[in-house]
Each structure stands twice: as structure tokens, then as C-alpha cells.
């Protein structure tokens, strides 16, 4: 009895109490008691849930509420540099000041519109480029012999483990006017004088595609590797040539992988800051960079918060698509 500890003892007492109550005709009370007890017994389980839950609420959800709150307040020269959303005036009046000005400002000022649109454009183009480069690679790895597959996969993941910042930085050396690529092209005789590549949109695209390519390849690989090869054989057997088999069988079945990979590239690319800051022109308008500048440059916390909220709204749709896709995937697997 002692080895089983308190739950066993309480369990026995509860069962006896239950049967006593039932015999006394108090069935309702017995059921109620049983329910209460079960809840107490779930204490351990609830505690397990509560620990990560509390952390994420405190450090992930509540901060967003605060961002929203500050986005609705006024900038001020103070510490912290914004006005409070509510104030007690005298003893009875709760004075709530909601300032929609920051959002109006985003709508009215062309700069924000342009940078939102440009961010989406850059992210879209980069996503498509990632897909075009990543799909054949993922397909090739998935169809390679299993000994090679592990090595090739490791080669895809390896850059991902090295510093993102340093990998972006590497492109500066390549794209500079007197950098590797220009020197190489001039040596080939393709060009006479260096092409300006650094600090252009091209460099930003290149940087994003380069940095996020593994995010495209990995989910695609995971999907293509699962592809049942007998389906392809069945298609060949029914007279379908390889190219057409790819279009009618492989491609439609890899749509979940395509969606997952595309969203994993698109979503962070929209809010990207480091790549446009290092490789883009000073006037490359990307929303992540605008937010950074509002915050660190202008110290306008309310506008920066409003930019963040707007960016989040922009990303809600792709995030929902991604979540939905993942949920359907895991359902299909089980």
C-alpha cells in the first residue's frame, strides 16, 4: 500500500465513499465526488501542461497585446517614449485615449504602402526562385541511392547550421564591384567593366534565395521521399511516359511539400531585415527594415508597433495556410 503512495490510498477511500453514497441513494452526489476527485488526480498532468503554457503566454502572447496597445498610443518624448493608453483622471474618470493615428499614417504615407508591396513582391519572386532551384534538388536527393541520400541531405543542412549572418556576408565579397564574380566575368571577357551588383534588388533576391533554399528543399524532400515508387511504376505500366508521369502523378502528390516549403520561405522573407540591410541599396524598401529604422532610427515606438501589427496581418493568411497544410499532412500520415 505504501509503495503506491497517496493516490492509491485516496483512490481506495474515494471508492468506499462512493459506494456508501450510492447505497444511501445519493447517486448524484457520488458522481459529483468522482468528478472532483478525477480533476485533482489530473493535477500532475495539468502542471505539465501549465509550465510551457505559462512561458509562452508570458513571453509570446502577452507581448503582442502590448505591441497592439502601444500601436494605439501616441509617441512622446519620455521614457518609455509613448503616452499611456489609459489614465485615471481625478478619482472617478477612466480616461482612455485610443490613437488610430499611427495606422492612418501607415495608410496615408506612400512609403509604407510601397515597402509592404515591395516586401511581398521580393518574397514572392524569391519563393518561386527557391522552388525552381529546390524542387529538382529535393527530387534528385529523394531518388538517389540511400547511401548518397544521407550525405546529400547533410550537405543541404550543413550551411543551415553555420551562421546565417556570415553566409549573407559572404555574398558581399562575391558581388562587390571588385569582387569575385565581377573579376571572374571580366577574366572570361564577358564584360569589360564591373557590373554594379551589390546594393541592388538583384543582390537581395540572391541573398534571400541563398539563405532560405534549405527551408524549401527539406519539406519537399520529406514529401518526395515518401512518394510510393509503385505509383510511378503503375503509371508507366499504363502507358504514361516519364515526363507525363511527373506532371500527372509526382507533381500533384507533392503539393503539400510545395506549400510547406513555399510558406517557410515566403513568411520570413517578407519580414526579412538582415539581407536587405547588408546586400540591398539604402533605398530598398522592405518592411522589416522600415520597422527597424522607425524603432532604432526615429525612436518612434508607436509607429514601429503599428508597422509590426500591419505586417502580422499581412502574414496571417500564409501562416493559416501553412498550419492548415501541416495539420492535413499529419492527419494523412496517421
Amino acid at each position: 500500500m505504501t509503495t503506491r503512495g497517496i493516490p492509491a490510498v485516496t483512490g481506495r477511500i474515494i471508492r468506499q465513499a462512493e459506494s456508501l453514497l450510492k447505497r444511501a441513494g445519493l447517486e448524484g452526489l457520488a458522481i459529483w465526488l468522482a468528478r472532483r476527485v478525477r480533476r485533482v488526480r489530473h493535477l500532475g498532468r495539468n502542471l505539465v501542461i501549465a509550465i510551457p503554457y505559462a512561458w509562452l503566454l508570458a513571453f509570446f502572447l502577452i507581448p503582442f497585446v502590448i505591441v497592439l496597445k502601444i500601436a494605439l498610443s501616441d509617441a512622446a518624448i519620455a521614457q518609455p517614449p509613448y503616452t499611456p493608453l489609459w489614465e485615471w483622471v481625478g478619482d472617478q474618470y477612466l480616461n482612455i485615449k485610443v490613437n488610430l493615428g499611427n495606422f492612418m499614417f501607415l495608410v496615408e504615407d506612400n512609403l509604407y504602402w510601397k515597402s509592404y508591396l515591395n516586401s511581398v513582391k521580393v518574397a514572392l519572386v524569391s519563393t518561386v526562385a527557391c522552388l525552381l532551384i529546390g524542387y529538382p534538388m529535393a527530387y534528385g536527393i529523394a531518388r538517389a541511392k540511400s547511401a548518397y541520400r544521407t550525405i546529400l541531405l547533410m550537405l543541404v543542412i550543413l550551411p543551415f547550421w553555420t551562421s546565417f549572418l556570415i553566409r549573407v556576408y559572404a555574398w558581399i565579397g562575391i558581388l562587390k564591384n571588385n569582387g569575385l564574380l565581377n573579376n571572374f566575368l571580366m577574366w572570361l571577357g564577358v564584360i569589360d567593366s564591373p557590373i554594379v551588383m551589390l546594393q541592388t534588388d538583384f543582390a537581395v533576391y540572391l541573398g534571400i534565395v541563398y539563405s532560405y533554399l534549405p527551408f524549401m528543399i527539406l519539406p519537399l524532400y520529406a514529401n518526395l521521399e515518401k512518394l510510393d515508387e509503385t505509383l510511378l511504376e503503375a503509371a508507366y505500366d499504363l502507358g504514361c511516359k516519364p515526363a507525363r508521369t511527373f506532371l500527372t502523378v509526382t507533381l500533384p502528390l507533392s503539393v503539400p511539400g510545395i506549400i510547406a516549403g513555399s510558406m517557410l520561405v515566403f513568411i520570413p522573407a517578407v519580414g526579412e531585415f538582415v539581407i536587405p540591410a547588408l546586400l540591398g541599396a539604402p533605398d530598398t524598401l522592405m518592411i522589416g527594415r522600415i520597422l527597424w529604422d522607425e524603432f532604432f532610427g526615429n525612436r518612434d515606438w508607436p509607429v514601429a508597433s503599428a508597422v509590426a501589427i500591419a505586417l502580422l496581418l499581412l502574414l496571417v493568411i500564409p501562416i493559416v495556410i501553412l498550419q492548415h497544410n501541416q495539420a492535413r499532412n499529419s492527419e494523412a500520415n496517421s
Partner: protein
Amino acid sequence: MASSTTFSTFEPWKDPAEKPYVCIDRVTKKFGDFVAVNDISLDIYRKELFCLLGASGCGKSTLLRMLAGFEEASSGRILIDGMDMAEIPPYERPVNMMFQSYALFPHMNVSQNVSFGLKQEKLTGQVIKTRVEEMLELVKLTQFAKRKPHQLSGGQRQRVALARSLIKRPKLLLLDEPLAALDKKLREHTQFELMNIQEQLGVTFIVVTHDQQEAMTLATRIGVMEEGYIAQVGTPTEIYEFPGSRFVADFIGSVNSFEGRITVDEPDHVIIRMLDQDVDIFVDHGVSASPNARVWAAIRPEKIHISRTDPGQARNVIRGKVKEIAYMGDFSIYLVELAGGRTVRVTQPNLRRGDPERITWDEQVFLHWLPSSIVVLTE
């Protein structure tokens, strides 16, 4: 029908004028060091239902995949209708296959799956539609045309796979364990359906299976495979009643084999002395074995009679004690222990309900058989 008039039954392999439809000519397939198919030659005739029977890993599926064109033979030739199949990719072969996993396209519904093969040919939409409808009717799936594979039962999926592989009206259909995924009742039912369809359409079937019952029911001929070789080819009756080797005898049904030496070797009969028993076995046919050679006398459990009383014969009788009885419903299995400890398996039909005279545990019994029931095997 090309069969000659001398044969009333369907036995084209006995007709020297008949040309084989599928000719497998000394085919070998190696995967690295592993020899999956070892120098197999096999002729299969038009409208046959040929079963390749063997345990898993015996090379039967590899042989089938070479016919379909998914594997290339390491050496040897495969001819279909007189045409060499080397270098011909699967999508250009006049052959269709039904996969063990069915390999239904999960993103297409039943009618899209079935029509897939036709869409690869230049046919009008109307023709495709009619033929798909006919085919769905044949396999009784008309009402499920719009369902996706995951919304179907195992039996329905199996019929979709069959319909899909038959829609192009192939002259040769390869079936890889077509019934393995079905439960026993459904499997028995589907066996007969499969035979009906084969007869109706006049297609040549090659079926790969590990289930001897299935092979016996379906096949015109069976090829028993063992470790890459063909152990024996023959009709179900030949394979069962006249197995060519101990392996085949053991693999198909169950068998009691008694090791012994030939003591009398005449053209019309032989006598075998059992090694571990004081018993002579009389066989009423000649055997092609050297005198004094070591042989095995094999006998099927149902061909042994069991009785309490001495049948009064000098040969083909052994005494023993009933160790175990298993009641199977339509028949019972008796395990009878002989002197020296080895057991013999005997089956008896349960002809009467609740027979009070039935032989029971620990009884002393006599086992005896007819001289024609013995098959003498040398290996």
C-alpha cells in the same frame, strides 16, 4: 481458340504446334552478389492462368517485374508474342500489371484511376467514358465512380486496381499477390470472380502468390519457385499428386516422408525398407533410382487410413499411438507416434456427427495405405 482437336481440355502446353505467348529464355537477374532469379526458362501460353508460387524472397516478384519492364534481366531473353522485350520501356509494353499494394493514385477518384491508362492513348473522350463505364460495371463499382481510394474498402480497392489494369485490354496481365490484402472469406469469393473475368476477357494471366491454396484454385499451371529456381512446373493435380522433389511435396500441402532404401527394384514395382522402422513399403510403380539408393517415400496425410484393428497386410502398415487430435470441423488431424518417437500426420474426414466409435487419445492404432499412394522422391 488455337488448341488442337486432340485435346478436349485446355492444355496448350501439351500441343507441340502451339506457340508460347510468353517465352522466358534462360533469364537471370542479379542484385549485386545476390542472384534473385537464376537461369529460368518458362513458356506460358495464350489464355493460361499461370501461377508463380513460392515463399517470400524466392524471386517470383522479380520475375514478374522483369516481364512488366521495371527490372532488366542480367542475362537471357524475354519474348512476348514473339517480340524481344529488351530495351522496351514499361510504358510501351503490351502488358499491364496489378500491384500488390494496388498502387492506386491517391489524388484521383475511381473513374480517374480507371481511365488513366486510356488517357495515355489518343482516344476521344466519349470512347474513354464508355469503356470506363463498361469496366466499372464489370467489377461492380459503378456507384463508387466518384470516390477517392481512401474512401473504399479493401475489396473495392482491389477491384479498382483490377479494372485499371484491364482497361487497356492487355493480352497479358501480371498480378502480384492480387488477393493477399483481403481477408479469407473475401479472398475465396474473389478467386472465382478473378477466374470468371479472365475467362470472359480471354486474357493471359500470370499471378504471383505465396498462397498454395490460391494457386491450386486459380491456376491452369503452377510454377513452384525456390531460391531463384523453378522447382517444378505442372497442373495443380500434378504438383500435388506427383511432386518432383521433397521441397515441392513439403511446400504444397503437408506430407509425411519416410526415409528408406530400395530393396527390390522391378520395372512395375519397388519395395522400400524404412530406415527407422521395421516396415516395408510396397510401391506399385517403377522408380528411376539406382538400387540401394537412399530415397524418401512421401505420402499425403489424407491418404493414410487409421484403424484400431490390424488390416492384416504384411506391407504398407505401421503401428503407432495417437498423441494429439486437432478437430478442424470438416476433418480431424491425428498425430500418431511411432516406435522411436517420430510422428505421422493423418487426416480423416468427419463423416458422422458425434461418432461414439471415434478413435481417441492414447489409443494403439494401425496406419495403412494403398501401394499407389506413395510418391518416391530421390532428393
